[in-house]
């Protein structure tokens, strides 16, 4: 019997100890008329059979293509040691560290993760992670709502549309006003943002690099937010933080990120990692778990979950949020990843991605009819305008083993001819050259 260890004799002995005659007597509290009307599931399979079936299913997905899909989720190299260390059973098969003395491994790792995220983003405090970048953004906005007791939220349309749709859903029952400032030729409308942030604003949200790949400086916007006592929130791409001016340096109150680029495989959408960090004055508004350093009865350093009075098991409906679990294993992977690369390795990787993306832009824009959307500085992702609808090109190239990027028209009316192209260190100049030649051939 898979995963149930008792012999028949042991089962009989256990039933006898309990004082019941059969297994079914254990379920006497469930009335007969509530018993299942059906339970038509397939019969169990052997491990070998399940594996074979899953291998067949995996093979129905095409992952052998050269793909320039990004849009916030990137295919970066993950060093082998990340899997090996995060896969250790003592980490992997542990639960939430409710007994700190027996969970110092998990707790110290979270403490180190908090430290690493604070240093990467130039913030004071980080939590132990939330589900993903989108839920981190929502939680950041709610921190702003609680801190200011205001209800107006201002976001730039250059914030990932995937997250904006999530924010729409999450706020639908909450009497909040979500104001979206339209993009200007694929870039943040800075003047529009400044105008929209006023004395009724709880939080203003921008993304850097934004969805179109553009890099900006939001220091002035956050200064203005501070002047009207609104909270400044910045979403970032953590790998690029190795080279970019930080949220802290720009004066953001809260920084959030999708941590997927730090050691998490793409895995068709998850699990990913919601990174959240803030200034020390906002710490009590921070949702989720936080680990703190303390001492044991002998004065030795140790780590515990702290500030739990904000959480659901104590505050119930008055808790800072309903988030109970974190993405501990993903946070561990991110920590191992940044430790293996170090600041130098992260910077090199970021620069390699940027170098390839700038080469790709060069190769694509020499094709007649292809031009860059806007002219802002960018890192590893950029948008180009094509002479034809982008989905058409994507279809044709994908059939030939190259996914040239993400068609922007799906989320931005008016940009039906635009394609968002991302490079990572996994690409080669040859890949880019072949893709550019194929695209050139199609458009000729």
């Amino acid at each position, binding site marked *: 019997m898979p995963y149930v260890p008792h012999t028949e004799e042991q089962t009989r002995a256990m039933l006898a100890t309990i004082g019941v005659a059969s297994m079914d007597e254990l379920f006497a509290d469930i009335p007969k008329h509530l018993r*299942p009307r059906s339970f038509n599931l397939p019969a169990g399979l052997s491990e070998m059979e399940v594996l074979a079936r899953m291998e067949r299913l995996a093979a129905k997905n095409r992952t052998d293509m050269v793909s320039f899909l990004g849009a916030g989720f990137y295919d970066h190299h993950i*060093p082998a040691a990340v899997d090996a260390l995060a896969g250790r059973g003592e980490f992997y*098969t542990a639960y939430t560290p409710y007994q700190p*003395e027996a969970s110092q*491994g998990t707790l110290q790792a979270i403490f180190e993760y908090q430290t690493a995220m604070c240093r990467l983003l130039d913030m004071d*405090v980080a939590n132990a992670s939330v589900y993903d970048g989108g839920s981190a953004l929502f939680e950041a906005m709610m921190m702003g709502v609680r801190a200011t007791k205001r209800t107006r939220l201002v976001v730039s349309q250059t914030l990932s549309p995937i997250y904006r749709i999530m924010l729409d859903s999450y706020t639908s029952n909450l009497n909040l006003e979500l104001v979206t400032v339209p993009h200007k030729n694929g870039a943040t409308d800075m003047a529009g943002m400044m105008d929209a942030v006023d004395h009724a604003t709880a939080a203003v949200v921008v993304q850097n690099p934004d969805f179109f790949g553009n890099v*900006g400086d939001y220091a002035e916007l956050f200064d203005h937010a501070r002047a009207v006592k609104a909270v400044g929130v910045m979403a970032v791409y953590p790998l690029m933080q190795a080279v970019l001016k930080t949220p802290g340096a720009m004066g953001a109150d809260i920084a959030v990120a999708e941590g997927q680029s730090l050691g998490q495989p793409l895995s068709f959408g998850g699990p990913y990692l919601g990174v959240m960090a803030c200034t020390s004055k906002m710490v009590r508004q921070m949702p989720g778990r936080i680990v703190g350093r303390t001492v044991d009865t002998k004065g030795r350093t140790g780590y515990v979950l702290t500030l739990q009075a904000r959480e659901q098991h104590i505050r119930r409906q008055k808790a800072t949020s309903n988030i109970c679990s974190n993405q501990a*294993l993903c946070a561990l992977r991110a920590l191992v990843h940044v430790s293996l690369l170090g600041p130098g390795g992260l910077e090199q990787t970021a*620069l390699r991605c*940027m170098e390839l993306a700038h080469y790709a832009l060069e190769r694509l824009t020499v094709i007649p009819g292809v031009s860059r959307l806007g002219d802002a500085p960018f890192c590893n992702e950029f948008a180009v305008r094509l002479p034809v609808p982008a989905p058409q090109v994507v279809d044709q190239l994908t059939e030939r083993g190259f996914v040239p990027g993400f068609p922007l028209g799906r989320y931005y009316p008016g940009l039906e001819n635009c394609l968002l192209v991302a490079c990572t260190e996994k690409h080669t100049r040859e890949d880019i050259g072949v893709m550019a030649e194929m695209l050139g051939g199609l458009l000729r």
Partner: protein
Amino acid sequence: MKTLFEQSIPCRQGVCAGLTSARATDFLPAGLVRSSRARLPELGELDVVRHFTRLSRRNYGVDGNFYPLGSCTMKYNPKFTEQVAALPGFTRLHPLMAQLRGAGHHTQGALEVMYHMEQLLCEITGMAGYTLHPMAGAHGELTGAMIIAAYHKAKGNKKTKVICPDSAHGTNPASAALAGFEVVSIESRDGMVDPEALRAALTDDVAAVMMTCPNTLGLFERNLPEIVEMIHAADALLYYDGANLNAIMGKMRVGDAGFDVVHLNLHKTFATPHGGGGPGSGPVGVCDKLVPFLPVSRVKKLDDNRFVLDYDHPQSIGYMAPFYGNFGVVLKAYAYILRLGREGLVRATENAVLAANYMRKRLEGVLEIPHDRICMHEFVASAVGEALNGVRALDIAKALLDKGYHAPTIYFPLIVKECLMFEPTETESKDTLDAFVDDLIEIVRRAGTDPASVQAAPVTLPVTRLDETRAAREMVLTDDCNCG
């Protein structure tokens, strides 16, 4: 143990993924570039490997320790499911691939997994439709509460309240509040939802009642049929917290019993490791009339057997996740369900309940069992009584750590004094259960003769008891100590 940061040596370099001689200012104006390097650890690969290997040894996991942590269902996680989730055909799949026109056919394997998993969960729980998007149990509760809100709004009902019994998980009220509801708490009687208290609270403006059944005392709600009828008569919906479904799989389907919404915790019931706190996965199932409100996208099977993502659901509550939930976790749970099949799932439930009752019976007379009747997958005991000499639930928990066990859940639910909540799960052998009970008996006996030794526990772990008050007061939350 030194932190990574304390071990860092300037200019030591670990792994490098992409060599280049480029500089940031080749691509960006200087004003947009970071002014100094992030102070991340500078270590060699072996330094990193040793550090995390050492850290892992300071941890308890199911692979090494019996983990009878109540309500957390810490059963054994089969290893082959890791192989499944690590197949490159899944890990390398970009989520947006499925959304490109005409490219859905390059993700057919993943879409088929999701489609079939939803069908399996429907059959296991008797619901009409599922979403796999919620990324954790509490996220599933929020999704369920939002579906309830959308349903009433569509019907034109003005319903502003959700009732949560005091024996419900603490996330229930928090999730209801986040979905915009006012939360009403009702007290239980004899460990059960009190039908009279419920009747009194069940006013016209109640949108739903959130039930945890079996409840946090491990008891099945005997008045369930009466409660279901009462709630539906008030035009309210009934929510089932299915975090611990392994108490009833194959014995009751929540849909057949009249529940309208349910969330499951795949990482508990369907044996996927929880990684020290997550990721989890919290699919939500709904009855027929709530299907139109499920989040988008949904997976649809076409007549020609192809699978596509379907966004055309105008009444949907929208996106709860950026994509399709924690797909990697879903994969493991899916493989686990295929492996066990119909008989295996029923057997898991029977043996989870068998183990809990066996342990409860063996602890009779050792600790007080406040509701000493047949329990489901877990039960609570109370560390009270003169024989304990002032030794508390916390002390017993710490003494168990010394013996190599993770402790049970303590001080939860709040409605039992000095509460210890045990959940042995179906994967632990009788020998383990017996050894655990024997060790617990020894600790209780020691409380009678030498209580100070129990109160001093743990003494065999890397640290002794930790000062939690100081942690909250001084708030050292990073290695830089600048957060207080």
